[in-house]
């Protein structure tokens, strides 16, 4: 029930945004993420962005996973 999926913010109007979720544009609320900007990826739960996804952290996590996986190959 705590399902939240990534969405790309395309435009913002006051406390609402148009965001692309898996190829579909939906209207979402930015009440909980007032600092969100166009071009940000946010996590959307029941029509509300609940945070801004951190692309740098995602990259670092993937690098870490690659390192772990490489260790396994040794």
């Amino acid at each position: 029930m705590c399902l939240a999926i990534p969405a790309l913010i395309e435009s913002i109007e006051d406390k609402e945004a148009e965001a692309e979720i898996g190829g579909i544009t939906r209207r979402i609320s930015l009440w909980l993420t007032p600092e969100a900007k166009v071009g940000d990826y946010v996590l959307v739960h029941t029509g509300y962005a609940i945070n801004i996804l951190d692309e740098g952290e995602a990259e670092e996590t993937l690098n870490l996973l690659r390192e772990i996986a490489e260790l396994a190959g040794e």
Partner: protein
Amino acid sequence: MKFITEFRRSELAEGVISQIHRKSKTQARFMEFCGGHTVTIFRYGIRQVLPKTIEMVSGPGCPVCVTANIELDKAIALARIPEVIIATFGDMLKVPSSYSSLQEVKADGADVRMVYSTIDAINLAKQNPAKSVVFLGIGFETTAPIVAASLLQAEEEGLRNYYILSMHKVCPPAIRAILNSGEVKLHGLICPGHVSTIIGSYPWEFIARDYSIPCVVSGFEPLDVLQCVYMLVAQIENGESKVEIAYRRGVRPEGNQQALKFMEQVFEPCPAQWRGMGEVPDSGLKLKRKYQHFDAELAFDIDPGPTHEPKGCICGDILRGVKTPLDCQLFGKVCTPEYPVGPCMVSSEGSCSAYYLYGEGFEG
């Protein structure tokens, strides 16, 4: 899709799995608190690929499953009031309460609407000024700030026919209750991802500190869960117990301050009934006095009558991690997703539904 497909790569997963096998020496039992993790673990067959040293148990982390019958009965009683429109997330419709389900009272003529968001519920209230719209506030910290925001929006717009039946629950006290009961011995906790998006990772510190149990916050893709298991194993083998985040793209240690602010503005802690666990202190959220005019329980005279539990259903024991669906006599025979007896079979995140849908070979 960005942030999803990268975390499903099988070549990386294989590497992480073999590292877990190499590292794990000590027998350990991990609980995934959250039903979303249960689904990932079953859908991707994660239990089967882990070494024999690691046992996974599912916890009470599905808001639909832990909603006690006494609360559901109130929702049903509200639905029976002629001027009331019930707005609810779809997961709740089929859940059997003591005598009925929302779906059944709807078939009997009650006005029950499935909504995707509280935004739809607010719109319903605007479109039906002569009716009272009651939103069923079910959910953990992930959802509670959203319901709080909807109430603040209704206040801002002067809406007078929007109400909330708050059945919200917060997670850390429930975990404390499970650990205090001592019924299941745990060596690691997979902390809920999107609850932590809101509350951050600090509220889990007491588990590592007071109970010496390693905690790792996980995301919901298979690589997230594998990374989380790897980090738990690493802590165990190093003799550590601390709180770590394996889902850094989605969770910051301090959480979402704006969301927490809304939650604190609108709600205050109260004792709450959890299915299978009974009353857990400070694990519920009720509306603060200032917002009591939104409280459906105070606005309507409801008499839910005596509650009773579905006969033979052991959801309560499953939610505490002491039994599995396979221990239930009704599982798969009398109780199926089409004809669910208990909530753990109704909810897509319930353990019984996960065992039913992805069950083949899970004990391997």
